[in-house]
């Protein structure tokens, strides 16, 4: 998973031009838990958009397993995202009108590789694995923050993606649950996946195999 010379400029050529990412080049390793740390406004969300194919950079290339993903069409990128990338967000973004089980099954609705009858089986196994067997028919507003985040992790994992991108996954959780989530993500990375966490939480350093720092759009190995 290689990003090369990624630059993202908002409002290019206008008076309010902002360079959010500045010539970022990085090589992520499979099976490793990578943390990207940075202050608010350092370009973390922009980097997540680029990593998750939610936005295209102004310049630069991005290769995942030899596929130059920026050359894919919008539809192809959607399919790629569905099969290869799992998102975990700070505020979970679970659908309130769906149960935990239905939320986890949501990405499988568009995945032709998973048969219809397999969807719920797979979701139940995942929820069980994440300790939510008894909560799968509950709605998000009936679950605790930690439970919601575990549902979101299960949703990210349901299509068996190689890449997990988590944006401040413990931002809304207490310290005990925070540790549980970090340990869970750490173990997920051991399943031969890329796990990339963007956070400003110092605790993450204890779990990350590699820590990168983002400062004013520049990515480096050191705190500046």
């Amino acid at each position: 998973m290689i990003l090369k010379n990624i630059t993202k400029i908002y409002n290019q050529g206008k008076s309010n031009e902002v360079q959010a990412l500045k010539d970022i080049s990085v090589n992520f390793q499979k099976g490793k838990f990578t943390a990207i740390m940075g202050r608010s406004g350092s370009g973390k969300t922009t980097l997540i958009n680029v990593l998750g194919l939610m936005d295209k950079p102004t310049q630069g290339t991005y290769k995942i397993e030899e596929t130059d993903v920026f050359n894919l069409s919008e539809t192809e990128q959607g399919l790629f995202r569905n099969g290869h990338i799992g998102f975990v967000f700070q505020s979970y973004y679970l659908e309130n009108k769906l149960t935990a089980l239905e939320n986890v099954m949501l990405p499988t609705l568009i995945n032709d590789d998973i048969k219809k009858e397999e969807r719920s089986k797979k979701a139940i196994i995942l929820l069980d694995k994440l300790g939510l067997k008894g909560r799968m028919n509950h709605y998000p507003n009936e679950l605790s923050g930690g439970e919601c985040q575990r549902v979101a992790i299960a949703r990210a994992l349901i299509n068996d993606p190689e890449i997990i991108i988590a944006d401040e996954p413990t931002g809304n959780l207490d310290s005990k649950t925070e540790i549980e989530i970090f340990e869970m993500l750490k173990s997920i990375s051991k399943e031969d996946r890329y796990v990339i966490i963007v956070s400003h939480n110092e605790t993450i350093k204890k779990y990350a195999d590699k820590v990168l720092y983002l400062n004013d759009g520049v990515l480096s190995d050191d705190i500046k």
Partner: protein
Amino acid sequence: MISNKDAFILAKKNNKKKRIRHIILTSVITIMLFMIILPFSYHKSSSNELENLLKHEYQTRVVSILQPNEEQLERVKKFAKETDYVVKFLEEDVPLYEMNILNLPKLPTNVLITTKSAIPYNSPEGKIIIDGRSIKNEDEIICSKRMFFEQNMSDINDSFEMKDYIGTTLKVRFRKHKAEGFVNDFVEREYKLVGTFNSEITRSSQTCYIKESEFDRQIPEIIESWDKSWGSGLYLKSYFDIEKASEALAGISRATSSHDLEFDKKLLAIITIEAGIIMFINVIIFIIYLKNYIKDNYKTMTLYKALGFTKKETQKVILFQILQSFILALAIVLVVTFIGAVILRIYYYYTAKAYITNVVKIDLVAITIFLALLLTIILYLIKRHTKIIDKFTVKELIKE
């Protein structure tokens, strides 16, 4: 690609707890439906009568001349020649044809009065058969569901049901009727009553229909005249000329027209314009509502994008969400309209002491155009307001 079934189920779940929206949508659509039914259906309901009158419009603007002497007749002729708003002067007495049924235990009077001029053949087209069937052969006849013993009666107690006589043979007499009385010649024919149709309570409800070819055979004469009038008369250009002509020929004239078609046309135009304006406003409300509805779903759309849904898949779910609300709203409208119609019928039946069935007919063409228009608006708005999906990023999720 998400299957239709999955998209439908997902849309149904997304629509949960959005009843207020359904109610708003329902109200808007109800008003819109009502507005479109009113002018078009009003027009359709009265179109037979109005169109016939409009075809022979001048015949409805008449001043009768009452048995003039020679001097008066010359005065009228001169007036007709010199006055630019007089279309025509008709001197002769105008006969009518009357049809009587002779062998019913309770005899209705003056069935099917016609002059065969304004209405060459009074067609049963558009009549709703209540019992039996419509006419197919020349020896068959259909009649109003209810017949009155005397003309101009509207009390239901003075009437009787014709359906009891379906299958029986009716002996019918055709007779020419002139101002001075019946002409002695008459024709009698037998017809089998095969059905009854819905009709309102008016003089013209005392109607029976036979096949057009049979009608022409029995009444071969084509008479140039106005409807339901005898004597000489002046046809005038405008409804407003009637008063002028009556005044000019005071003492020998009588205004016979009772129908201001100009007013009818204006009324219809006003109703149509008003309904059009209200409908236009409703369409705008509908568009704003849909636009906001789609925009309210931007966060969900961003989440779907993050999960890998393509733009088309997201559009499909949103379309199903809107269609589900829309179909629910239409179903509510239909039920409410049906209940309303039943209540109105019961109300009229018991309060007006009359058999009133002149209900507004729904114009299916107008409804079809209306539904197609709404569907087009829905599809256009979904396409237009979901174009932006490609630009949605994680930032859209974080937005408050």
